[in-house]
């Protein structure tokens, strides 16, 4: 990853910018929105994507330490994926997020909530880091 950032640095004019967006590596949550608030269903597991997110953080920090980039701004935001039902979200993840794992207890929780409240929208919540870096 540091090598990729070094390559990117060669593509930028001095004083130009890099925007990096990637999940912060915390567990991704399945949420069931109810009138009284969001009900937590469970966490999505990943085989190894989360390791790459921490490696991305380390790589960015390394390029700041070595003086390739300086951090202008950084922050986090919530990234929500909306699905009309838990099954629809499962299908979406199977097709688009090959690293994702939904455990049996999470599926059971989702089924229980659907039995109690009916089938309704389900959210997938990721916490995402965003950084604006200036090429030195």
């Amino acid at each position: 990853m540091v090598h990729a950032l070094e390559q990117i640095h060669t593509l930028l004019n001095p004083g130009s910018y890099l925007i990096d967006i990637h999940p912060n590596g915390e567990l991704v949550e399945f949420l069931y929105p109810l009138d009284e608030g969001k009900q937590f269903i469970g966490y999505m597991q990943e085989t190894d994507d989360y390791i790459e997110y921490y490696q991305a953080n380390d790589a960015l920090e390394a390029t700041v330490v070595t003086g390739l980039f300086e951090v202008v701004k950084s922050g986090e935001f919530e990234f929500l994926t909306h699905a009309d039902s838990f099954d629809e979200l499962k299908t979406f993840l199977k097709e688009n997020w090959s690293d994702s794992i939904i455990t049996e207890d999470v599926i059971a929780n989702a089924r229980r909530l659907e039995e109690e409240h009916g089938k309704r929208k389900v959210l997938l919540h990721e916490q995402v880091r965003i950084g604006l870096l200036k090429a030195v």
Partner: protein
Amino acid sequence: MLEIGSGDGRLTWRYADKVSRVSALEPDAEKHKTALAERLRGFEHVEFLNLGLGEFVKRNKEKFDLVLLSWSL
């Protein structure tokens, strides 16, 4: 502007009208095809390239004002 890992272009279309020119790299052939197929009228200044970063760096001779990495580092 250079976007690295532009996928099917879903983010590209959200900002492309705010910049003068975009080169968008996507090494996955299927995603690249989708991005080309979904090009909107008025977005001819967006160039989609079916390349990874390493290959692009070898061929490229220009500099960019802004690089975007979205879920791609």
